């Protein structure tokens, strides 16, 4: 009996396969998760983001300026989406995250170029995420040196000086030293909250059902909404503890700048935490057992990391991926956190990201309550 026998081993193997076959959701996840990773890593993610929205503030509309703009466009990195009339307007577009770059062409650009005075071309970048702006700015350097070669012919050829005819100035706003941690550490807040909040609550109702306590709960006068909310509230406290831990570490360990109002950040974090908890509760009403609940949470977590702009630049993704990303709470929360901490955004600037969070919360909660009602009948 002590010897290893193949038929006993085979008995276990067979039993495992039968159980795997019975648990359709788990089997589906085993196929679904790799497919999803393939799609996300293979198609959605791009570490060389192009077509970044750009505002132009052109005080000079002359032929040289036009050639320059056309060259930036054909590089593929810049898509002109806005025209800013004033410096304040340009700054606001950056603040809101509407554009990644602002190209400033001064009024005396052509005149100074012709005089050989190396006019200044100022490109301002929202560098909160250095990986999004880096490749584009490298491209600009190459363009600025040679773009005017074709225009500067004949007597103007002398202007093709060795150091380049244009004085290119790059301003990386919000994160001038291009420190990756400044971008990653605030972003981690959304990722950590998504992971823990969704998984904890995904187990909440599944566990009641698995242990048989659900039937008892249903036989008492307690209402579905009371159960949902009662299960969410304690974890909101947990969520705030996590927010605090990450902020403390960001400040003392990583020295992440905190320009905006922490109070505002704490206030809006409520929406995000609640949205993730509601999602978890909804998963837990769908899952038949705790394993399924964890898998569903993971299924949600994966795009929340990859498509939210946490790991890879959001604007580098194809349109469909950006569309999926804009549904996810983490995408909006990341922008809110980075906006408040790094750009000093106020309530007005982050409001466009609050609505998607609210909508997500309401839909997830409604779905959860609706599913919960159906549990016994």
């Amino acid at each position, binding site marked *: 009996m002590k010897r290893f026998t193949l038929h006993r081993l085979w008995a276990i193997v067979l039993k495992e396969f039968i159980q795997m076959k019975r648990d359709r959701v788990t089997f589906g996840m085993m196929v679904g998760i790799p497919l999803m990773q393939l799609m996300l890593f293979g198609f959605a993610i791009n570490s060389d983001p192009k077509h970044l929205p750009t505002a132009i503030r052109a005080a000079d509309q002359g032929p040289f300026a036009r050639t320059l703009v056309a060259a930036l466009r054909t590089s593929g990195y810049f898509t002109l989406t806005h025209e800013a009339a004033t410096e304040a307007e340009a700054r606001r577009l950056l603040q809101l995250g509407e554009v990644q770059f602002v190209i400033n062409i001064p009024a005396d650009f052509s005149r100074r170029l012709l005089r050989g005075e190396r006019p200044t071309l100022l490109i301002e970048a929202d560098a909160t995420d250095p990986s999004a702006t880096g490749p584009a700015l490298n491209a600009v350097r190459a363009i600025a040196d040679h773009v005017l070669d074709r225009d500067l012919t004949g007597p103007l050829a002398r202007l093709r000086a060795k150091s380049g005819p244009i004085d290119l100035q790059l301003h990386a706003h919000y994160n001038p030293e291009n420190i990756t941690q400044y971008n990653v550490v605030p972003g981690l807040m959304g990722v950590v909250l998504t992971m823990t909040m969704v998984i904890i609550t995904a187990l909440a109702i599944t566990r009641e059902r698995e*242990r*048989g*306590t*659900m039937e*008892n709960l249903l*036989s008492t*006068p307690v209402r579905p909404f009371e159960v949902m909310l009662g299960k969410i509230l304690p974890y909101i406290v947990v969520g705030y503890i996590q927010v605090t831990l990450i902020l403390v570490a960001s400040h003392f360990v990583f020295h992440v700048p905190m320009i905006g109002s922490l109070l505002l950040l704490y206030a809006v974090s409520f929406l995000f935490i609640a949205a993730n908890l509601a999602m978890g509760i909804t998963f837990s009403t769908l899952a038949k057992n705790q394993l399924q609940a964890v898998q569903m949470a993971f299924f949600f977590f994966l795009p929340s990391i990859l498509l939210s702009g946490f790991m890879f630049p959001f604007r580098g993704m194809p349109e469909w991926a950006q569309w999926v990303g804009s549904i996810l709470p983490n995408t909006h929360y990341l922008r809110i956190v980075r906006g408040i901490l790094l750009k000093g955004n106020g309530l007005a600037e982050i409001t466009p990201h609050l609505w998607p969070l609210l909508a997500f919360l309401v839909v997830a909660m409604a779905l959860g309550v609706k599913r919960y009602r159906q549990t*016994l*009948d």
Partner: protein
Amino acid sequence: MSDPIAPLSSPSDFAIDVTGVTKRFGAKTVVNAIDLRVRRGEIYGFLGPNGSGKTTFIRMLCGLLTPDAGSGTCLGYDVRSQQADIKRHVGYMTQKFSYYEDLSIRENLDFIARLYDVPDRRAAIQQSLERLGLTNRSHQLAGQLSGGWKQRLALAACLIHSPQLLLLDEPTAGVDPKARREFWDEIHRLAAQGLTVLITTHYMDEAERCHRLAYLAYGKLLTHGTLADVLASARLTTWTVTGPGLLDLAQKLRGLPGIEQVVAFGTTLHVSGRDATALEASLNSVRDPRHEWKEIHAGLEDVFISLMDAAKDNFA
């Protein structure tokens, strides 16, 4: 939201008064047109084989499931539309232990008491701990309790809001005889105070401790009434036989006309059938002077098995 006291318009003699209650899951009819009346203060035993629809029927009574057909009242509240009211006045003890194993006894009771909004909660919990002898264990985690103590906790928890009706789904499964007896003594005390109890069980001795019984099989109510009513309704004749070679005798008896059950009880065989003359004729055909035959009153178990066999012929 609604009056906590049962409305006076209902016939107050009956805690449960339902007719034609039916529940289907998909194509399967689990509870088939059951009529049931349970008087207030009565202990009503609900028996039947596994899967006969007892649990489903109880779940419809306490508002966990909505009947597909049929109507009636539970404590005067409509079983279809006033489920929330029913829940507040019914104590339901599930078949499987359904309290929190990672909470202590007191924490479990406190949780349930809060859900029912029990007035003067602390006193109610203390009282319930004392009555069921749980005071010394109140800080023990429910998960560490043995079967008997878990059952006491479950009973205490479903009594904490002073319900008028107690629905107990196999409360004594897996509980030792002494604990079972104490449990039943407690049930009788509660009934004496006016509480109505509907209890399902597979134990015949427990069935005999009920005021009234009902027997369910294949979703149908096969018989109901007092113990004597149920025994008489079956019209079952039972003989016992003792002596040598009972195993061979049992083999011979099975399949003879009029013989429906041949059951070994230690050193005796019980032989039963509904047709007394056919049964006796068959018994005479296997007479052996070494065997001693005696006619006895049919037991509850014989009656139920006979009912179930008859029902199988009708429904299955």
